[in-house]
């Protein structure tokens, strides 16, 4: 059976490492890109079921990367990974205004949170509160 594929797009190697370690023993295959252009291209070329996308990156940022992804994969689940601060949300409000769909995942990330949200999106059952 083919493993479900997850794409992480982040210029920070430590963040990509965090996803890789968290999902090391999961039933998913992790793809990585360290910039938005490569990430959007990878997304267009590969079958991917879930994307974790950094908001702030050198080159094209997360919102522009999202525009490129949406041009080819309108229904793909894309999580924008960012701190939850109002000053970081202006671009996301604009993106919503353009009709771009996305979900949010808060930085900094904990291993269990990466596992829970990945399982929550890709089909595993939720765990108890606390």
């Amino acid at each position, binding site marked *: 059976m083919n493993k479900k594929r997850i794409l992480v797009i982040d210029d920070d190697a430590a963040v990509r490492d965090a996803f890789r370690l968290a999902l090391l023993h999961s039933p998913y295959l992790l793809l990585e890109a360290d910039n938005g252009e490569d990430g959007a291209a990878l997304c267009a070329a590969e079958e991917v079921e879930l994307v974790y996308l950094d908001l702030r990156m050198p080159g094209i940022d997360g919102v522009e990367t999202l525009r490129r992804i949406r041009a080819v994969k309108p229904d793909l689940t894309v999580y924008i990974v960012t701190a*939850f601060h109002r000053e970081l949300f202006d671009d996301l409000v604009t993106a*919503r205004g353009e009709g771009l*769909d*996305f979900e949010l*995942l808060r930085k900094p990330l904990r291993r269990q949170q990466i596992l829970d949200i990945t399982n929550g*999106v890709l089909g595993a*059952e*939720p765990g108890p509160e606390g």
Partner: protein
Amino acid sequence: MYRLRLYVAGLGPAVERQIAGVRSLLDAACGGGYELAVCDILEHPLQAQEDTIYATPTLLRLRPPPTARVVGDLSDPQRVVKGLVLAGNGG
């Protein structure tokens, strides 16, 4: 009466469908015995911080205890009912 809070990322057609799906699921699971508040994280990041929200969508059960939450896919009724420990009679 269940008190629930749904955290979403902005408002738009897709999120409106998400909200409608949750209401439909709750109608089926607990009849009219619930109150659902919707919170847009883009507008209310501090509220999300208070509720220790780390991802959207998140559906929180606030009352009655125990508090519970479901994060991610909210389209599966069994997953939501089990995750929120809904009894089906409005608590």
